[in-house]
């Protein structure tokens, strides 16, 4: 009973935080430096790990597909398979998971630490809403950076797949053939679908991690517990939402 109540409280406080943050959207133009700082943290510092993982996800996808498809002699379609998988599913999903692990955990740790040290209370006594200066710039930054990260993830994944196809003996598909198949199947609306997913996942991760951070009470142990809770909640939400968002996007597409 207590766990149900705790989940409902979490959902409620996250929705309230969302409404409060949105109500200050007009102040964003005066928070350029915070917005740019968050774009740097969310986008630039996450880029290397997104690049490395996307490269190997694209590579292993090509490798596994090539191994399975060699029996049917259909290796020439690997480009289409890797291209579509990266752009519609793996790109946005992987960026969101990395965001939860790398950025979401840092957001929760920082805000929970501020809460425990009464810095958030100090803001409230100054009539400065925490949602305005601590959450809104992060939400705006994630909306700005997720498409960039997703597109880069897609491109690097495609490139990884192309390299594997060229240099793996049992696949032996030339990059020209690989990208021809990819171009034939992957449409612009697929890229947009993937970006829509990434935007939703990114927004949810930052909102949930901020909400859990700002509702932390206690000391160092509670900060650690809050970070774990934020990352686990974000991962579960990403995977559950992925199904429903995909279904919705496919319904719109058809």
């Amino acid at each position: 009973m207590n766990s149900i109540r705790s989940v409902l409280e979490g959902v409620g406080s996250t929705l309230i935080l969302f409404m409060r943050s949105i109500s200050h959207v007009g102040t964003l133009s005066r928070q350029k430096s915070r917005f740019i700082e968050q774009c740097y943290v969310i986008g630039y510092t996450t880029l290397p790990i997104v690049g490395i993982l996307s490269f190997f996800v694209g590579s292993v996808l090509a490798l596994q597909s090539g191994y399975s498809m060699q029996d049917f002699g259909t290796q020439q379609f690997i480009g289409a398979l890797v291209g579509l998988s990266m752009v519609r599913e793996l790109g946005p999903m992987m960026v969101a998971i990395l965001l939860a692990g790398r950025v979401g955990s840092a957001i929760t740790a920082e805000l929970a630490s501020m809460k425990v040290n009464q810095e958030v209370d100090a803001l409230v006594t100054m009539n400065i809403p925490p949602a305005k200066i601590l959450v809104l710039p992060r939400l705006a930054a994630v909306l700005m950076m997720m498409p960039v990260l997703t597109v880069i993830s897609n491109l690097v994944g495609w490139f990884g797949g192309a390299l594997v196809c060229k240099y793996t003996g049992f696949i032996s598909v030339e990059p020209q053939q690989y990208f021809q198949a990819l171009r034939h199947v992957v449409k612009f609306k697929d890229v947009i679908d993937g970006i829509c997913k990434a935007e939703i996942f990114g927004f949810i991760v930052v909102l949930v991690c901020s909400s859990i951070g700002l509702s932390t009470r206690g000391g160092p142990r509670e900060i650690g517990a809050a970070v774990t809770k934020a990352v686990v909640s974000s991962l579960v939400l990403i995977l559950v939402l992925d199904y429903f968002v995909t279904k919705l996007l496919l319904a719109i597409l058809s």
Partner: protein
Amino acid sequence: MFTQFSNSGESVGFRENKAVGVSIEHLSKSFNKLNVLKDFSLKVAPGEIFVLMGPSGSGKSVLLRHIIGLEMPDSGVVLINGKDALSEDIREHVRMALVFQAGALFNSLTVFDNLALYLREHRLGTEKQIKDKVMQALTLLSLEDAAKKYPSELSGGMKKRVAISRALVMEPQLLLYDEPTSELDPVSSAMIDEIIATLRDQYRVTTIVVSHDRDLAMSIADRVGILMNGNLIHIGTPESLKNPTDKRVSDFLYPKVDLNNPRFKKIIP
């Protein structure tokens, strides 16, 4: 005396406030079935320094958090100039500040930015005026050399003074201090006492101080209250505390060290 003028000729000094009165009526608050405040009532006059003393866990800090709106009471009300402290009118028109026990300074900002944050967020002047005002507040408490430092680089006493400076730039009409002299050496404590009294005298700030410090209460308070188990058991002038008739008050203020019958053995058999 503390008013300075910017190059443009505009005043950047701290204005003298119209002090506010505080009335706490039948306030009750409990956490997890533990009654922290029980039907608590108190009136603090405009411009008064009221010192609230009491043992740890008696509800002093919780009371301050109710006055500034960080906690919601289970029942009862806090009135500022006769209006509910939680109302929009009071939140927008009465400037209140709380000096937290641990300072609650923003660790990611320099001392200067800690003070400037309020002024910048509420757009209370140009960057030049804000700089002048912040430096004036820092100079007032001899902190001008610490402007570029981060809170982690400051001593305990300096953190307290920065926290007071941060409250000062808000030009508060009601200033609340939570244990301002805790963890400080005697000289630093005396300096904080002087600052609290000076700010009241210079700017007519209504001041409520929560403290264990008997010297602070005796030297700067207009009135002192003793809170125990959520109830006010004594209220009076500092003089009234010199020879208290209530045994609970005398035991709290003038405890005798009894090595033959130590207190902790009564608590832990």
